[in-house]
């Protein structure tokens, strides 16, 4: 999953995977914090976001 997305030009560091049990609340908070930090450190990704629909 990650490999093909990054292969087609989604920057590494944007897509994260984790396995968290419903009992692991602290791990959840940890992971979310880290991901938010890492993604914020990258420039905003504008290429895979629809703005105006293209009509022609």
């Amino acid at each position, binding site marked *: 999953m990650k490999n093909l997305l990054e292969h087609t030009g*989604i920057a590494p560091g944007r897509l994260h995977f984790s396995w968290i049990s419903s009992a692991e609340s602290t791990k959840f908070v940890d992971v979310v914090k880290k991901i938010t930090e890492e993604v914020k450190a990258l420039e905003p990704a504008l290429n895979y976001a629809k703005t105006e629909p293209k009509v022609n």
Partner: protein
Amino acid sequence: MTGYTEKIREIAARLLTEGKVDRVIGFRKGTVPMMNQPHYVTSPAMAGELIWDSHCGLNLANYVTDRKERIGIVAKGCDSRNLVTHIIENKIKRDQLVIIGVPCTGMVDRSKVCALVEGEITSVEESDDAITVSGNGFSKTIAKTDVLRENCAVCTHRNPVIHDEMVGEPVAEQTGVDAYASVKKVEALSPEEKWNYFEDLISTCIRCYACRNACPLCYCPTCFVDESRPQWVGKSQDPIDVRTFHLLRAYHCAGRCTDCGACETACPMGIKVREFTKKLNKDCFELYGWEAGLTLDKRPPLDVYKTDDPDDFIR
């Protein structure tokens, strides 16, 4: 490869006469040169309609899913691998099939041939390793190796992996070809260049879905692109929608694609659809040592769990 046609007709007629199968699926001559059509033959008298040459690029395994009758099917290397995949995925039973194996020397890319001549090609002749195309005021002989489809040029499973009949002696498998050369080239690019590479690749896609329809793996009763409740992907020509379609379609083929090239053969816009699936094929090969459709005895990597599955991407 010359002589395959007679052999296919003979086997088809025999199977139908003996009542071993209810129909035989093969190719007949198309209405346009270099575009053969899939064809059903249901009586021995019709067997003469079947043919074989270097323009049988579509994948006949596409036409057996969920069939209830007994089927004879003409299968080159890649078709036979897709039959294996179908059997593993319970889309057809092995004992319903009589597989007429065709040792393959590769199929021709029609657009490459057309690019070599000026004017419209109206007839094509073929010998063992060359084809001669002619039209109004021209005639040209081209070596087959110069105009092979890209997937055929790097194919290393040309002989059918399962078969009940064979139309000829096995051919030598190619060695020393790098099936993933084009993927490696893209892997070396920066994220932005990668993005642009694929943007450019699919920029002319008209979303006709010919690639999906030609694919033996795409047998879902309702494809995600056609669904409207929920609507998984936008239906417009917006580049984001087009990209989403291609990405999702590729994921549906992960660990199943045999690189038969039917998608590219079917595409009216000459888009290299395989650039998406090939990356997944390469990953499957590197992570799991897996190539789809080689054996009935192994489950595909994505439907088994093993404790040593690679999991570096999970934190």
